[in-house]
Each structure stands twice: as structure tokens, then as C-alpha cells.
């Protein structure tokens, strides 16, 4: 046999099979003809012997096609393995370059994943319940932890109001209600002396069945818990709590635990994915709302229409729409509220035009969502910009390198590597980089999102990374590959073969094809990096300046030396004279501790999160609306303003002599005095509030006690200890002013409180700075992250510029050498090179300033004392960027100016 013919072309399966079979039949016919058959008969006999020609042909073709396909696959895999090995080897030889890219991409991917984990968890994900889209949230979804006793309000529901709604509506098949549990004192068994405080939530009995939450173990409780006092107290716990606290022990089902001294039976564990209707905060234990009075005997709310503390979730009937609910629910609520309120309350309620909250409940309720929305969107834009910069930077690096490898590529092309093969090789290199970076990024993201959550919410948020986010990360990294891999790959493979190989003979003017092409794209990338960095830096500077304004706000107290002691007097049943005695006792005992300057007490105090409000009448003052008569008030002890370090502007402060009077005296703040008595002295004037006539004896500076940014600051202070029938204080906070560092005496104070009443629960003994931190933590976090992004962007832009300069100078070494040889001043060379770079930076800077000026309006809601397009921030950002750019350009430029002509001319 002779083998002379190798198939050089891609095999055509059909034709080959036909040829093969035809050959067989021909041979057979020829044999038969040789044996004496006629041609016709021989053909027939051959076909007969062969059998079913068409079937055989088709099955042969089918099998060959399969073989073809698998061979192609094998080839592809072999090449991929080759490419990958090669890519890894190349990267190992350029470890610095690879490291910069991996770190940059990891930061980009990680930061994006971290931010988007938050975005996904808070803004996108729906509740893991049955048909979440049919749920309607009623009540202000931010107030998941709200509890308000007093005048009627529209943002939270009382239990009775909830029942009215459930009974009267026609749009929901069912309505559930949920509310805060307050702090729960739980004793799992008598072996554990220490009290635990799991996060609880009161829910109506239909909660689990209406939401459609499956159980993991035992059962969830149902409407049987609504029977009231005679119903056995039960609880359902979350899967997370079951795992964390009970190590998934099935024996816990049916066990009894002590909650606020009440025996409660755990009946079951909810499904793993269900963490409650409050997004971002995991619930550990669900308790029937029917036993809330039994659990908090000093704060009975079930029959009290003035206790608004529930949020409702309605499930729409089939065919009913959110729009219908939005029409009907407010009508029902308003009718029920007005018909059950006193006429004056009803009038006041209607006068302020109540706002009813009826929104989709698909994504659950959340206090954090609304608060985080604006900052999260800011950060999303920030990280997206950062990722763009990173991609531009990486593209630049890869571009520079692929050009530097131009010769290698041309040689390989000349040796027969196809254009598509080269592109694939370069793409594989980028892909390998991208996957390493994606893995590093994922680690970084895992760590980053945990840290971010901890910082953002002081440990209140529990959110794990999920698969959506994982997919997102991979999407980002693959997009990054497409961005930075494809572009240089295509450009590199367009290399002019001949000129590249001949590069040794390049001329002075640098006619090497690649240099002419490289410059524009690289320069565009650098300029756009500068632009994006400017935008980020301006935004970050504005946020940082705003944070400084917030931190520097005078809140009206001696913030550096104040400790707030919060004790739960209600839990121990203190009220009236007993409460007054306790307050005095605690004050005197704490004042005796060395290092304490002054001590006083109040009902709400500073940064405690609670406040009182009322409306008043001022003789001679004409209110334009009910809003004008609304003020906040606090009950304070003797010497309160001395203790808090608040400036006394007029008159005197409240003293021990003011205690125990039925109709007494008050101190008002500056806002109050200016609003009601503009241009006149307030001291000595009388006002009426809560049917009492009160005389103003002093005016103090405003205290921002509910947050740093407060709108209505009008506030009055009444004696804590008074004999009036209305508005007796229901809580106790001590204000302790220290001489030195407040943290030093915290333990002393705790011990002292315990020595007065060892069973009095202490909710907190905190320096004011720590309490304030909670209020500015979010603003601080956003500012810090934005600054971090800005600094990274700056660094990357500088690295990019440095890289570009180094590269172009190394390309121009001969030219520069010749210029110097021909008599050019070194300083002139330096200026030439620097100007070249600065032109790029200035272009990017100008575009960036315009973009920043136009886009920082997005930040408006988050700024305090800084206007969008703030000129100072723009100038600062521009100067910082200019400085960094000059530094980055100066090093390579100095190197250029030091070029020795002889060495330069001899190189290459």
C-alpha cells in the first residue's frame, strides 16, 4: 500500500463516506464482472450483498460527525492547556506586573462585591416567603423598632387599630402585624445564671401561615395563640438562633425557657432562609403578640389605642392590587383613629394632614433600607468609577506590555501562528489574570463585606454573600477581561510584521509602527483615569468636609466629658415618689465618686433616642398651623444644665427648690425663646401646656439631643420631680460630667448603680462621644470609603502615568540622547518630557472638574454645610491630583534628562 495522500483540508464527512462506500461497491462489481457477471447483474448483486445502503450511509455519517466534534473539542482543550501553561509561565516571569494587575482588580472586584452585597441584601432581595409580591406593608417601614404612646399617629398601628384594619378591609385575604419586643431577658435553663438577650419580635398568630414560612423542626405557632390570657405561651425560634445557641438540637422543641420571668415553650424552628420580615436584622425568636402584656406588665399595650407600635403586612386577595390597598387602607385607618380619639386629639391629628404608609411589602420592612439607600447609591457610583479606573489602568499596563512584546508576537506570527491563535493566547493570559484576580477579589469581598456591615450597622446587620453576588463578581471580572484583554489583543495582532521584526533598524523619529499607534490609546486611557479620579476625589473631599462639619457641630453640651447612664426603671416598676427617690439616690452616690464634676438626671437626656412632644399655647403668639405649637420637652433634675455643660443664656436653671411643685417653672432653649418671643426677653413669661400654666425662669443654648442634624429644636425643660398629674417621667437617664477622661469612671459608675439596686437593669453607661458615634457612624463610613476609593483612584492614576512615561521615555532614549548630543540643555529635555505628561493630566483634569461640578448634585442629600460643586473641594482635589501627577511624571522625566548620549545611541 502506498500512503501518498494526506487530507490537507478540513474533512467533509458526507463526501468521505460516499467515496468510501462507492469504492467498496465498485470493487465488488469489478470482482463479479471478472467472474463473468454482466455489468447490470453485478451492480444489483453488489447492492444486495451490501444491504440497506442509505441507512448504513447515514449512521456512518452520524458517527463521523460525532468523532469530528469530539476531536475538535480535544484540540481546543489541548490548546487551552498550552495557552494557560504558557500564560502562567509568562506571568511568573513578570511577577511585578502581574501583582499590580491582580491587586488592582481584586480591589475593584472586592469593593464592588462588598457594596453590591449590601445593595442586594437591602434594596433588591425579596422576602423568602410564599408569593412575596402579594404582600403590602402598612406603616412606616423604617419604624420597625418604634413604640410611641400618646397622641394618635399614622405611621404605626396600635393592636386595636390593627384589628380594625384586619376586620374592615376588603382587599387582603389576611393581615399580620409585627412589632418590637424590646429587650428580652431570657434564661434558657436554670444552669445558666446569666441572662441572654436574643432579638425578638412580637407577631400575630397568623404570621407564619400568611407569610407561608415552612418549618425546619417542630411546628410554627398559629392563630390558637390569639386566645389571650389562657393560651399557653409559646415561641418559634429562627434557624440561625437554633444553630447558634442550641447547636441544632432537636430536643429543644417542647422545652420551656424563661422570658422576662414568664415560662414560654419553644414549639418549633422556622425554615433556614427565613430571618424575619425585617430586612437586614435577623430575628431570633418570634413571640405571639397576645402575650406581650404578660411579658411587659409595666407597659401594657394590647388594649391601649394610644400605644402605636405595630407594622402590618397584608396579603392581597387574588385580583386585588396595591393601588386598591393604597386607596382603602388610609380610609379605614383614618376613620378608626378619628372615631376613637378625643375631639381635640382628632382635630390635631387631622390638622397636620397625616401621611399613611401603604407600600409593597415584597422586600420586607426595614429601618436600614431607607437610611442606607442614598449612601449606598453614592458608594455604588464610587466603586463603579473605581472599577472603570482600574480597568483603564490594567488595560494600559497590558497594552504597554503587549506592545513591548510586539517582536515576540511578530516572530510567532511569522512562524505560522494564526492571528486568531495569537488573540486567543493573549486573551487566555488576560483570562488567567482575571480568574486569579476574581479569586483574590472574592476573598477580599468576603472580608470586606463583613467588615463593611460591621462598621455600617454596629453589628446589627447580618448579611451573607449570596450566589447572585457571586455571579455578579464573575460578571464584573469577565467584563474586565473583555475590557482589558480584547483591546490590546486585537491591537497587538494587527502589528506590522515586517517593521516590527526590523525594529533594530528603527529611525530617530521613532517610525516603529507600534509607537505611533500606541500613543493615542494609552494617552486617552491616562486622561480618562485622571478624569474619573478627579470626580471621585471631589466627591470624597465634599463628603469628608461635610463629615467635619457634622463632627464640629456644637451640640450644646460638653461632649468630651459627659457620661449618660441609662437604667430601665420601668422594668422594676419604679414610678412616682419611688422613682424620685431612686433618681436622687443614684445622683448622690455617683456624685461621691472621685473624678466626677456634676451629676443630674432627666427623662430622655442626650442621644438616648427617645423624646417627648406636646403642643402649647403662648399668650400673644398666633400660630399659623398646628406645627407651630409643637415642641419637645424633657423632665430634668436640679442642676441639669451644669451637669451637661450647657450655656445658660438668661435667667437661672432649675434647682432643688423647683421640685415637688404642682404648677411650676420651666427653662426653655434658645430656639424656643426666639420662636415664641422674638426680640423680647422670655424670662418671666407664662405659657400653657397640658392644662398647666408654666413660667419661664431661664433660657439655655440649644441641645441637639436627638441627632446632630435636627429640624425643630424648640424645647422646654420641666422639673423631673413634680406633683402634677399629667406627664410623669417614665424613664431615667443620668447625666454625669467628669473632670477628666470619661471612660475612666464608667466601671465605677456601674458598680455604684448596682450598689443602689442590684436588680435594676442597666441599659448603658456610655460616654457621650460613643453615643454620638452611632449617629454619625454611617456618614463617617461613607466619607471614609469614598476617601479610600479616591486615594486608590489617585494612586492608580499616578501608577498609570508613571508607567506610560517610563515606557515612552525608554522608547525615546535614542532620540533624547541625540538631542543632548546635538547640544540640547538637560533642563530643556526635562521640561519637554514633563510638559508632554502634564498636557494629558490637564486635559483629564479639566474634563473631570466639569464632570464633578455637574455630578456632585447627586450627593446633595448627604451633605451637611457643603454645597454641590463646592469650589473648595474641587480646588483641593485638583491640587492633590496635580501634585501626585507631577511626582509620578518627575521620576521618569529626571531619568530622561540624565540620559548619556553615547550610551543611548549605542543601545539597540
Amino acid at each position, binding site marked *: *500500500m502506498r500512503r501518498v495522500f494526506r487530507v490537507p483540508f478540513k474533512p467533509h464527512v458526507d463526501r468521505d463516506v460516499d467515496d468510501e462506500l462507492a*469504492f467498496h461497491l465498485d470493487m465488488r462489481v469489478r470482482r463479479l464482472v471478472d467472474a463473468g457477471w454482466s455489468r447490470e447483474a453485478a451492480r444489483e448483486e453488489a447492492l444486495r450483498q451490501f444491504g440497506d*445502503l442509505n441507512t448504513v450511509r447515514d449512521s456512518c455519517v452520524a458517527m463521523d460527525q460525532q468523532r469530528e466534534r469530539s476531536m475538535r473539542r480535544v484540540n481546543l482543550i489541548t490548546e487551552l492547556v498550552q495557552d494557560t501553561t504558557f500564560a502562567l509561565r509568562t506571568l511568573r516571569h513578570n511577577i511585578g506586573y502581574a501583582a499590580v494587575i491582580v491587586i488592582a482588580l481584586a480591589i475593584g472586584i472586592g469593593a464592588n462585591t462588598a457594596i453590591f452585597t449590601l445593595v442586594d441584601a437591602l434594596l433588591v432581595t425579596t422576602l423568602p416567603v410564599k408569593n412575596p409580591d402579594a404582600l403590602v406593608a402598612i406603616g412606616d417601614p423604617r419604624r420597625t423598632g418604634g413604640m410611641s404612646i400618646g397622641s394618635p399617629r399614622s405611621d404605626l398601628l396600635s393592636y386595636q387599630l390593627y384589628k380594625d384594619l384586619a376586620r374592615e378591609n376588603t382587599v387582603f385575604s389576611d393581615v399580620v402585624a409585627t412589632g418590637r419586643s424590646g429587650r428580652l431577658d431570657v434564661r434558657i435553663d436554670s444552669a445558666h445564671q446569666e441572662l441572654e438577650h436574643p432579638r425578638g419580635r412580637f407577631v400575630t398568630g397568623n404570621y407564619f401561615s400568611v407569610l407561608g414560612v415552612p418549618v425546619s423542626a417542630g411546628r410554627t405557632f398559629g392563630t390558637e395563640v390569639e386566645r389571650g390570657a389562657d393560651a399557653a405561651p409559646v415561641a418559634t425560634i429562627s434557624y440561625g438562633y437554633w444553630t447558634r445557641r442550641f447547636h441544632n438540637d432537636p430536643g429543644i422543641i417542647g422545652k420551656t425557657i424563661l422570658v422576662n420571668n414568664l415560662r414560654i415553650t419553644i414549639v418549633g424552628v422556622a425554615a433556614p432562609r427565613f430571618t424575619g420580615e425585617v430586612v437586614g436584622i435577623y430575628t431570633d425568636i418570634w413571640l405571639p403578640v397576645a402575650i406581650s402584656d404578660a411579658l411587659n406588665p409595666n407597659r401594657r399595650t394590647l388594649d391601649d389605642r394610644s400605644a402605636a407600635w405595630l407594622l402590618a403586612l397584608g396579603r392581597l386577595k387574588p385580583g386585588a392590587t396595591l393601588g386598591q390597598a393604597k386607596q382603602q387602607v388610609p380610609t379605614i385607618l383614618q376613620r378608626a383613629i378619628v372615631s376613637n380619639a378625643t375631639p381635640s386629639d382628632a382635630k390635631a391629628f387631622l390638622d397636620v394632614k397625616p401621611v399613611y404608609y401603604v407600600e409593597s411589602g415584597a422586600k420586607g420592612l426595614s429601618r436600614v433600607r431607607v437610611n442606607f439607600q442614598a449612601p449606598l447609591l453614592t458608594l455604588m457610583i464610587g466603586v463603579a468609577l473605581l472599577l472603570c479606573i482600574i480597568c483603564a489602568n490594567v488595560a494600559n499596563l497590558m497594552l504597554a506590555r503587549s506592545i513591548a512584546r510586539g517582536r515576540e508576537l511578530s516572530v510567532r506570527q511569522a512562524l505560522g501562528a494564526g492571528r486568531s491563535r495569537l488573540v486567543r493566547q493573549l486573551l487566555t493570559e488576560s483570562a488567567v489574570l482575571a480568574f486569579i484576580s476574581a479569586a483574590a477579589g472574592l476573598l477580599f469581598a468576603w472580608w470586606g463585606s463583613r467588615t463593611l456591615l460591621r462598621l455600617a450597622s454596629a453589628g446589627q446587620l447580618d448579611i451573607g454573600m449570596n450566589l447572585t453576588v457571586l455571579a455578579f463578581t464573575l460578571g464584573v471580572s469577565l467584563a474586565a477581561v473583555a475590557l482589558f484583554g480584547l483591546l490590546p489583543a486585537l491591537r497587538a495582532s494587527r502589528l506590522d510584521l515586517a517593521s516590527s521584526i526590523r525594529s533594530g533598524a528603527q529611525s530617530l523619529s521613532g517610525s516603529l509602527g507600534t509607537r505611533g499607534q500606541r500613543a493615542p490609546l494609552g494617552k486617552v486611557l491616562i486622561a480618562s483615569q485622571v478624569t474619573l479620579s478627579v470626580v471621585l476625589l471631589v466627591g470624597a473631599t465634599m463628603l469628608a468636609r461635610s463629615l467635619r462639619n457634622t463632627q464640629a457641630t456644637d451640640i450644646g453640651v460638653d461632649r468630651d466629658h459627659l457620661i449618660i447612664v441609662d437604667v430601665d426603671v420601668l422594668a422594676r416598676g419604679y414610678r412616682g415618689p419611688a422613682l424620685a427617690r431612686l433618681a436622687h439616690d443614684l445622683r448622690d452616690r455617683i456624685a461621691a465618686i472621685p473624678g466626677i464634676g456634676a451629676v443630674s438626671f432627666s427623662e430622655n437626656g442626650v442621644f438616648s433616642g427617645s423624646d417627648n412632644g406636646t403642643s402649647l399655647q403662648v399668650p400673644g403668639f398666633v400660630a399659623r398651623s398646628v406645627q407651630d405649637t409643637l415642641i419637645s420637652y424633657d423632665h430634668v433634675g436640679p442642676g441639669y444644665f451644669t451637669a451637661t455643660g450647657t450655656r445658660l443664656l438668661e435667667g437661672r436653671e432649675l434647682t432643688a427648690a423647683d421640685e415637688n411643685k404642682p404648677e411650676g417653672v420651666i427653662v426653655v432653649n434658645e430656639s424656643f425663646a426666639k420662636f415664641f418671643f422674638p426680640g423680647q426677653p422670655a424670662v418671666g413669661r407664662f405659657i400653657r401646656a397640658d392644662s398647666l400654666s408654666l413660667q419661664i425662669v431661664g433660657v439655655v443654648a440649644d441641645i441637639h439631643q436627638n441627632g446632630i442634624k435636627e429640624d425643630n429644636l424648640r424645647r422646654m425643660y420641666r422639673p423631673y420631680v413634680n406633683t402634677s398629674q399629667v406627664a410623669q417621667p417614665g424613664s431615667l437617664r443620668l447625666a454625669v460630667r467628669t473632670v477628666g477622661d470619661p471612660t475612666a469612671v464608667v466601671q465605677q459608675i456601674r458598680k455604684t448603680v448596682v450598689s443602689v439596686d442590684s436588680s435594676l437593669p442597666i441599659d448603658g453607661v456610655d460616654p457621650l462621644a460613643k453615643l454620638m458615634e452611632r449617629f454619625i457612624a454611617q456618614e463617617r463610613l461613607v466619607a471614609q470609603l469614598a476617601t479610600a476609593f479616591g486615594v486608590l483612584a489617585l494612586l492608580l492614576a499616578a501608577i498609570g502615568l508613571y508607567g506610560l512615561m517610563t515606557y515612552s521615555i525608554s522608547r525615546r532614549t535614542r532620540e533624547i540622547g541625540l538631542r543632548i548630543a546635538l547640544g540640547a540643555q538637560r533642563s530643556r529635555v526635562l521640561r519637554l518630557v514633563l510638559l508632554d505628561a502634564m498636557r494629558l493630566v490637564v486635559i483629564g483634569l479639566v474634563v473631570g472638574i466639569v464632570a464633578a461640578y455637574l455630578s456632585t448634585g447627586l450627593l446633595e442629600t448627604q451633605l451637611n454645610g457643603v454645597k454641590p460643586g463646592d469650589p473648595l473641594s474641587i480646588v483641593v482635589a485638583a491640587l492633590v491630583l496635580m501634585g501626585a501627577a507631577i511626582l509620578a511624571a518627575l521620576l521618569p522625566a529626571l531619568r530622561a534628562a540624565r540620559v548619556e548620549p553615547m550610551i543611548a545611541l549605542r543601545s539597540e
Partner: protein
Amino acid sequence: MLNPDGGLLRGTLDVLILKALSWGPRHGYAVAEWVQVVTEGELLVEEGPLYTALHRLEKNGLLTSEWGYSDNNRRAKYYELSRAGRQQLRAEVSSWERYARAVGKALAAASPSVA
């Protein structure tokens, strides 16, 4: 093994093809001729299924193929045993021999007793 109607049991054809190619590359027609000659026509080999079998064996990696020229200078597809094909042939031959010995012994038995 023979079917009652004298056809081949599945699998038998594969062994015969492997054996036919054990002396070197042949085209399909040559394989068909060889089978006919060595079995002296005792086995009724339909030629169509032979090609299906050749392509299947090739797909499964037991054979490789290459186009070449036949003795009368026509373009023909030559099959050759791959390494896997050779191993397969060895395995098949030894199992066939064991099988045939066992069946032969049984059919030659003289007494019905089980000792």
C-alpha cells in the same frame, strides 16, 4: 456466535474487524473479503453493517483511518488498529477462547451427573 438464521451476533463482527486489521492497514472492502475468505462463507456477513461497525470502532478510538491509494490506484480509506484497538483485540481473543472452551466442554459431556 451465530444467530439461528446464520447472522452474526453483535460484537462478533467487531472482533473479526479487529482481527482483519491485525496484520496492518486495510480498506473496508479488503476487510469484507478477508472475513468471507477466512470463514469460508460459513458466516453470513452483510457488508453494510461492516461499514457501520468500522466507523463506530473508529469513533470509539479503536481504529484510526487515513486516505490512501489502493492497488489499482483508486482513492480508498484505510483503517488501522490503534493502541487501544490492539489491546481490545487481545482481550477479546482470550475471552473468546475461554468461552468457546467452556461451551465445547459442556457440549461434549458424556454423563448427566454433577460430580
